[in-house]
Structure formats: structure tokens, C-alpha cells
């Protein structure tokens, strides 16, 4: 059997089926870890809660909204601004976060009056914002505050405002994934179909399951708009509240991160007949295929091919420069969510980096099916790992870099294994052609940083040589590139700008009203 038992977890036999190593000939009928189950007592999880999944991951990237947590102030602090989901409206959603600051007296006597006053105060403090989302927390859920009724009263008193209520308290699921589900369904039940945005094209999509980390969604929207496609809404990175109320008018839902947002796509399919197309936005080949698939749905193949050719010609030589230097390096791909399967295969194909382990903190077995299917033989897959398992995996696998979030990343740094932040990113966006090169650059910089030459020294006792400088790039990363003549002259390190997103804003795009839907 492919199940892997960590030595540190031998005393927790319930962990026996939460990790697998893909052996020769193994497939999904024999090699799949358990997933999305309650965390086992005795182990420590890296998971977030359902409230965090609803607010922090899905809802809060909406840009023109006052996001209120109805609960203690600590809840909202822990879901505030750590994901770098930027917006093109001066980052209102990053600058401000709001909590009703429940205390013991509110738990005893109720907090509905306070909530109502807070809502009114918020709208008065920010008179240009007319939309609000309110998130229940454990405290307000346990005492049964009727947030929806309060919101209804305020909307009756203030007809120019609109409020969305999300009942996803922290205990509402085994992990943040439970919150993803709840907010998806709440949004389609409460808000979709209540607003009719302007339809400007014959080709209209919702871009779903991207949260605009450092501009990821804006990169993709640029490609779609260059094809002449109207992106009606982005769920929810850089998304507008009212555009998201009009999701029912799109012709196609283009889905990026399935497990965080497939619920709303499935419901749109059921209620409005809108089909769902799952895509990969990372890596040259998968991204090219994805753009072409969306284009084919509308008959815009020529427009897509022009973008693919232009972007590939511009960025492939720079990707190749890094790929040559990254070839054979080993990484642990521990992203938490969808990058588990978005990157499991293509990072190996296009950068030569071997993925020796994948994990997810909150992934369902469906997420692991995709990851395990795409990983090479020998890869270790772990569901909901605890810190000791992470340490043991790093000792066993000896990766050159761990791609993960801040918390496990700091643990890997203590083991002198560099890490790359792929939650909030180091220097993203990583989506799109240029973004993929930026990921290769960040991976290269992480693995070959000269700081590793010093990080293992103890300056209180080790003798530090003073007659030597740092090793140079040619001495550490280029040492295995034997013959320089094999490197085409156009290959070079990254030459893009520091900020590649701001310039997209205000760009003009072709109008295609006169075009007809394509045929097979």
C-alpha cells in the first residue's frame, strides 16, 4: 500500500491514511490520501477556519465594499490584508477592515443593536462606499444574532446601500474550505440576479476562482480583453460587488481554482445554464491551451493565437534562461490550495524542477486526485500536515526549496532550506507568461541566494573568513552549464518591470460587437 507513516505520527494511528507516496504503477484507485476531514486530536493543523475561508479568501478581495466582521476584533485582524489581493481602486479593501468588537457583555445581552449602529457608522464614515459584506464569527453565531434581519432593517432605512450577509462562523467546517462553500452558495442565493450590468460584447465571461494576488486576475483579464471578451465579473479578486450580482448574464464561467469557487459555477450552470470551463492559468503551455479553449468557445481563435505567439516570443527566452539553471533542483510544493495541482506537473515540464512532495492544508480528496495524477512517481502527498510531519518530510526529501506560505516557510528557513511564498507571493504576479518567468526568477533567487553561505555560521564561535567574498552567480548557479555556446544569445535573465500590473489599468481594448459567434 502506498500509505506513508511519519515516525513522528506513529503515536497518532489515525494519521495513517493521510499521506501517500506514489509508487510505480500507482494510480488513483490505490494511491490517494484522505482529505477534508476533521483535524485529528493530538496533531496540530496549519488550517484556517471556515470564517477565514469565507472572508479572507473569497469575499474580502471584493474591492468596493466595507467588509465587516461581526465578532471580536481579533477575528478580523487575522483575516486582514495578508494575501496582497490588490485592486485598481486604490486598495480600499486592503486599507480598511472593520469589526464590531464584541465583548463579554454582548455575548450575554446580544449585539444586534450594536451591529446596526456599526453599519450606519461605517456608511457615514465612508460615504462613497455603498456596499457592505457582513461576516458572522463564532461569537455572534453562538448567541444567535440575526445578522440578516439587521441588514434588512438598515437597507430599508438607507435605500441607496446594499448589504450581503455571510453566515460562516469559524466552527462551520473542518477548515477554511467549509467557508468557501458557504459564501459561494450565500452569494448566489442572495445577490446573483439582482443587478443587470451593461453587456458590451457578444463574448461575455465570468472569471471565477482568482483572488488577484499581486495582480494575477488583472493579468488574465488583460488577455481576455485583448481577445474582445467582456469579463463581466471577477470572482472575487479586484471584483466589484454589483458586477458580481450580475454573474447570471455571462455566457461562460472560466474557472481557475475549482475547490474555492466551483460551487457558484455549478449553481450558475444549474439555475441559468451557463457552462463551466476549468483552466490552468500558470505555465506557458497550459496557459496557451486555456486561452485557446476560451477563444474557441466564442470563435476567437485568431485573436488568441496572436496573443500566445506574441507573449511566448517575448518571454520564452527568459524562462529558458532560468530553466537551464533550475534543472534537477528539488522542491516541496506545499501551497495549501489549488497550486498543488496547477503546478505539480508544469513546473517540472517547463522549469526542470522536480516536485518531490505536495500537500494541502484543507484540500478535498478531489484536489489530491488532481495533484497525485500530475505528480511523478516517488512524490509524497500529505493531507493536513502537522509541523513535525513537515520537518520530517524536509529531512527525508532534502528539497532545495519549499514553496509554501509564511508559517511553514519560516519553519523551513530554520532548517536552512529556502522557501518561496506562494500564498502572498514574493514578487508576483506569477500568473501569465511574464508572471511564470517571475516565479522562475524568484525560485532561482531563493535557491542560489549567497545568504545561504552565511546562514549556517554561528558568529559567536565560528571563524568567519575575511579574505573571501561571496561566490558569484557564475560560480554557483552557472557552474553546471558547461558550454556557453549552447545558450542562445537571446536567453537572458528577467528584463521586465518591477510593477507589471498598474500599466494595464486604463488600457484600451478592441470592440467586437460586430463579430459573430464562431462555428466548428
Amino acid at each position, binding site marked *: 500500500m502506498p500509505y506513508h507513516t511519519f515516525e513522528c505520527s506513529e503515536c497518532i494511528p489515525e494519521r495513517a491514511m493521510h499521506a501517500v507516496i506514489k509508487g510505480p504503477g500507482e*494510480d*488513483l*484507485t*490505490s494511491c*490517494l490520501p*484522505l482529505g*477534508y476531514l476533521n483535524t485529528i486530536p493530538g496533531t496540530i493543523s496549519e488550517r484556517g477556519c471556515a470564517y477565514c475561508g469565507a472572508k479572507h479568501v473569497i469575499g474580502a478581495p471584493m474591492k468596493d465594499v466595507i467588509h465587516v466582521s461581526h465578532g471580536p476584533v481579533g477575528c478580523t485582524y487575522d483575516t486582514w490584508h495578508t494575501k496582497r489581493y490588490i485592486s485598481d481602486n486604490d486598495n480600499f479593501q486592503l486599507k480598511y477592515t472593520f469589526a464590531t468588537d464584541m465583548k463579554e457583555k454582548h455575548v450575554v445581552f446580544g449585539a444586534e443593536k450594536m451591529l446596526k449602529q456599526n453599519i450606519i457608522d461605517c456608511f457615514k464614515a465612508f460615504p462613497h462606499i455603498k456596499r457592505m459584506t457582513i461576516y458572522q464569527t463564532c461569537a455572534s453565531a453562538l448567541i444567535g444574532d440575526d445578522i440578516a434581519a439587521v441588514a434588512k432593517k438598515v437597507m430599508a432605512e438607507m435605500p441607496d446601500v446594499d448589504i450581503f450577509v455571510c453566515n460562516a462562523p469559524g466552527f462551520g467546517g473542518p477548515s477554511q474550505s467549509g467557508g468557501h*462553500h458557504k459564501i459561494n*452558495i450565500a452569494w448566489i442565493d442572495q445577490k446573483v440576479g439582482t443587478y443587470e450590468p451593461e453587456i458590451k460584447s457578444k463574448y461575455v465571461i465570468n472569471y471565477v476562482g482568482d483572488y488577484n494576488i499581486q495582480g494575477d486576475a488583472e493579468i488574465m483579464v488583460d488577455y481576455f480583453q485583448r481577445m474582445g471578451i467582456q469579463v463581466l465579473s471577477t470572482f472575487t479578486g479586484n471584483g466589484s460587488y454589483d458586477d458580481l450580482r450580475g454573474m447570471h448574464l455571462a*455566457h*461562460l464561467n472560466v474557472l481557475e481554482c*475549482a*475547490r474555492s469557487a*466551483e*460551487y457558484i459555477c*455549478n*449553481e450558475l450552470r444549474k439555475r441559468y*445554464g*451557463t*457552462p*463551466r*470551463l*476549468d*483552466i*490552468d492559468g500558470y505555465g506557458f503551455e*497550459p496557459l496557451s*491551451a486555456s486561452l*485557446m*479553449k*476560451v477563444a*474557441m*468557445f466564442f470563435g476567437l481563435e485568431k485573436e488568441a493565437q496572436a496573443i500566445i505567439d506574441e507573449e511566448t516570443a517575448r518571454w520564452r527566452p527568459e524562462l529558458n534562461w532560468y530553466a537551464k539553471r533550475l534543472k534537477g533542483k528539488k522542491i516541496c510544493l506545499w501551497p495549501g490550495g489549488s497550486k498543488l*495541482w496547477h503546478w505539480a*506537473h508544469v513546473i517540472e515540464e517547463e522549469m526542470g524542477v522536480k516536485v518531490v512532495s505536495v500537500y494541502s492544508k484543507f484540500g*478535498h*480528496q*478531489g484536489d489530491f*486526485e*488532481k495533484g497525485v*495524477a*500530475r505528480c511523478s512517481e516517488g512524490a509524497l502527498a500529505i493531507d493536513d500536515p502537522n509541523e513535525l510531519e513537515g520537518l520530517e518530510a524536509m529531512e527525508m526529501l532534502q528539497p532545495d526549496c519549499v514553496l509554501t506560505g509564511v508559517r511553514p516557510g519560516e519553519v523551513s528557513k530554520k532548517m536552512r532550506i529556502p522557501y518561496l511564498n506562494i500564498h502572498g507571493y514574493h514578487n508576483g504576479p506569477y500568473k501569465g507568461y511574464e508572471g511564470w518567468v517571475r516565479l522562475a526568477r524568484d525560485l532561482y533567487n531563493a535557491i542560489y541566494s549567497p545568504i545561504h553561505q552565511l546562514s549556517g555560521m554561528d558568529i559567536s564561535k565560528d571563524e568567519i573568513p575575511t579574505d573571501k567574498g561571496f561566490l558569484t552567480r557564475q560560480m554557483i548557479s552557472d557552474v553546471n552549464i558547461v558550454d556557453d555556446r549552447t545558450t542562445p544569445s537571446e536567453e537572458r535573465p528577467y528584463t521586465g518591470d518591477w510593477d507589471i500590473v498598474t500599466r494595464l489599468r486604463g488600457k484600451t481594448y478592441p470592440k467586437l460587437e460586430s463579430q459573430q459567434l464562431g*462555428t*466548428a
Partner: protein
Amino acid sequence: MDDVMKDRIEQLVDFIMKWCLWQFHSRSWDRERQNEGILTKTMQLLCDEPVDLSTPSDRCYWVDAVYLANGFKKTYPWLGTMEKKDIKLLMQGLKDRIDYLTINGSLNQELTNPLY
């Protein structure tokens, strides 16, 4: 089914598992629909048969099928040497295998959950 056919089916399975996502919708009924819709249209494209594009769902299946048919032809030159009746047998075997891996033999315990 002979060994050559089995080997070829596994090669096609490998391509789908590495480069596609449509086979992993979250529930059995959805996977059945996806596998049927996309693999049927892929077979029709490979056999030069007409493809129904009358609904938005059909168009959606079709774009994945075009990607698959092109990818198969580019990656596996032996496909070009096969007769259409054999391609149909191959694609039926592929569908059976994908159904087994993603539905009937899958270890995913959520597939039969009535809720999303």
C-alpha cells in the same frame, strides 16, 4: 483487448491526467457527464464525424475535445496509422478506463455526496 490496445489506452490516460482538469469534477454524476460529453466528442473529431454544437454545454465539451484530439495526434503518432473502427474501440476503452479511475474505482469518498 490485446496488450497493444491496453498500452495505448494507458498512454492516452496519462495525457489526460497530466494535461486536463475536466475529469475531476467533484461528484460522480458530474464526472459521468463530463467523461461522456468530452470523450464522445473527441472520438467524433478523431473519426471525422459531425459534432453537435447546438447548446452552450456542447460547445464547452467541444473545446476540451478539440484540445484532446489535437494533443493525442501530436503526442502519439501511432494514432494516425489506425483505422476509424479501431479508433472507436480505443476511445471506448479509454472512456471505460477513465470512468474506472475517476468514478467506479476512485477512492474519493466525496463522489457520492448529494451536496456539492
